[in-house]
């Protein structure tokens, strides 16, 4: 089993150091990667870890209100929350990712939360191929513009423009779910060449109507094109250069 912990330079990394100084034992499955701020942790990186077979990823940062960069930890929290809600509908156990606040003086807490996380991963078992495949897809979603735009703009929309945070959260989740479906469609098209909404529905296991709507949206965004009606259905293929 493998557990990855992202530590921020100001709070949780010194916290982990303190765990060492206090000789507090924590699971040897834990590996630490240091970043300056938990807000540096791009979801792409979390998903990269999962798709490479790491069984659990924990992002740790300063306590709310204590972030050295003011709101980096809040950005991290927003991202991990989003990821968990997306995981719930994508076949990945949402407990594989979590966020914890650990201050520089909380060596004990570092040891505790890593132990608890290990126990949780023990309970849910090692990451399976289905989860790895799903992580791969979501990784690609968070590598592309649309999901990143909506996620990245959260702060501006909510803090500066006064948009209702709950409404925005809904938009964010809906957009990412759409993108997940579109990414899955793209993969099927890449594999097979040209497919209709029905053929895609069979392969993906989502309703053909929803897939067709997304196909039209993808066509508008010039990601795919329709190649005409074959066998009574409109078929779509990937636009060249995408």
């Amino acid at each position, binding site marked *: 089993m493998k557990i990855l912990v992202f530590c921020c330079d100001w709070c949780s990394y010194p916290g*982990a*150091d303190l765990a060492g*100084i206090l000789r507090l034992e924590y699971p040897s499955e834990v590996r630490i990667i240091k*970043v300056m701020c938990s807000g540096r942790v791009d979801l792409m990186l979390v998903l990269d870890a999962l798709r490479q077979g790491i069984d659990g990823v924990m992002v740790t940062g300063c306590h709310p209100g204590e972030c*050295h960069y003011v709101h980096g930890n809040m*950005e991290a929290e927003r991202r991990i929350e989003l990821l968990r809600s997306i995981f719930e509908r994508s076949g990945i156990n949402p407990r594989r990712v979590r966020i914890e606040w650990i201050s520089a003086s909380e060596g004990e807490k570092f040891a505790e939360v890593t132990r608890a996380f290990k126990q949780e991963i023990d309970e849910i078992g090692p990451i399976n191929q289905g989860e790895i495949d799903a992580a791969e897809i979501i990784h690609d979603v968070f590598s592309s*513009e649309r999901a990143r735009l909506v996620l990245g703009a959260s702060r501006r929309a909510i803090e500066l423009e006064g948009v209702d945070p709950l409404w925005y959260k809904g938009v964010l989740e809906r957009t990412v779910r759409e993108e997940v479906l579109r990414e899955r469609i793209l993969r099927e098209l890449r594999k097979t060449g040209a497919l209709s909404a029905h053929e895609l529905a069979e392969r993906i296991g989502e309703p053909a109507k929803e897939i067709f709507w997304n196909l039209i949206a993808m066509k508008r965004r010039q990601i795919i094109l329709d190649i005409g009606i074959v066998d009574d259905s409109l078929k779509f293929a990937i636009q060249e250069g995408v």
Partner: protein
Amino acid sequence: MIGVFLCGCDGEVSERIDLKWLGEVAERDPDVGYLETDEHLCSKEAVRKIRSIVESKNLDRIVIAGCSPRTHEKIFDDLASIVEFANIREQAAWVHPEKEEATRVAADILQSAIVRAKLAAELEPVRVPIEPSCLVIGGGVSGMQAASDLSAQGYRVYLVERDERLGGRVKRLSMTFPTISCGFPCRHDCPECELTPKEEELYASEFVEILTSTEVMEVEGRIGDYHVTLRTPEGVREIKVGTVVIATGTKTYDPSRIPEYGYEFEDVITSIELEDLYMKHRFLGGGGELRRPSDDAIPKRVDFIQCVGSRGEKGGNPYCSIVCCLYGIGHARAIKEMHPACEVYLHFTNIQAPYRGFEEYYRESESLGVNFVRGEVKLVEKGEEGLVITYEDVDLQKSFEEATDLVVLSVGQEPSDGAKELAELFYRELDPDGFFTEVNQKIVREDATGVFVAGCALGPRNIRYAVADGKIAAENALALLKKGEFEMEGIMPIVDDTKCIGCNICGNLCYFGAIGVTEEIAEVVEGKCRGCGICAAACPEKAITLTQFDDEEITAQIEVFARAGEVSG
């Protein structure tokens, strides 16, 4: 070629981790061209040795495996152009008692450090010049001290004060405590005597420009190069400075927010108004007399109420305002000395007297006949005969309702007006109480802003500490000014302008105004960036790379951990 140096840490690591095997793991990497193990890598000799090896073997990057970089980073930092750390002590040796397990973990940590060393780009350190001048905002004792110290070293100082005169709050005080006398014939130890020479000195200095009735409107720029727009009585003016000292002080609490203290009545006054009363009589030639506002009579009884607006009393601010205990006691005994027949009561919760000489001063006052009453004051109201005070004596477990002639409210301190706006202009944080915070509350690292805060702007302080703060801020600013340039931490976002679409999401996320779209694509203001990387994580186009915590480096580390079993097993 990479050199790997393993440290045994005098057994702390070597007894818990199989360093020999660790060395073998390292050497399996074709890029690792040198391996050395030492029990005490941070010793002078070892460091000297590393230096010579780096030179002789022509190593351009090295990995130090041992303790946390937070311990000894500075010792190794300049040994090669790229230095990476594998924290195998805190993260492996000390936390995994099983040697085999600890060794396995250490191997992963070491490999990830080697991978980072491979990918790390050689960085030209960013150096920004420092304009040899300083803006001091706030002309109280703290700001005056800072201005005086800076100008003494020959740097240009702009001393900006919102009020018409320099001197701040201290200028309004009639005397300071606990030293109460400077000798015959004066027995006031008035701040005026201290302040006036300082003020004249500043006005005389060819390096100081004093701008009273002036406020800061706008700020642009970065450490070493701030363009500040001022609103002066003569009009708007822009100045260019390299460093800034914020010494904006505090304001006193408005006691009308606590209606039960009866501040609406003429003979209920604040401590600062008490100062005004003294000063009035002093200038009128009354000398050592206290006469109450309503009828100019010498009061037969005075009640001091402490903690007005402080320590959470009656909904006031949660913090202790520090100065009120001493000035309360000081005034109480001064009154007792002036008018021995006058009864003086002081209602308090706790007396905070932690500074040198304060405790003695407090004890002395008790013997002078000041009545110290522990307990809450319930109400100050106006009866037919005059003021009536209702209070509790916790020690006697009794309540009293008594007539009094004068009530003095020992008001606390609050962040001064405009602190929030100023903080935003300089990208500074405020604490939950609204005071400025020090550059790094938790770990004091090198400052990268060139903006220093001094005095009560950081929270309530007494005069001595406010002055000391002014000196510290000046010292910090001088250190920067004397160097003439500032070397930035190497972490820096780099924008790929072929990818950037100009969406400015980075600009909206960066608290420090270090990145943002000005024309068509995002630009980085080098002097402002603090390297957090939030921008890189959020960029929709992945157009931002970070010089030390790039996606590539992090994913390479992830890969090492993900493949761990395969390589070292």
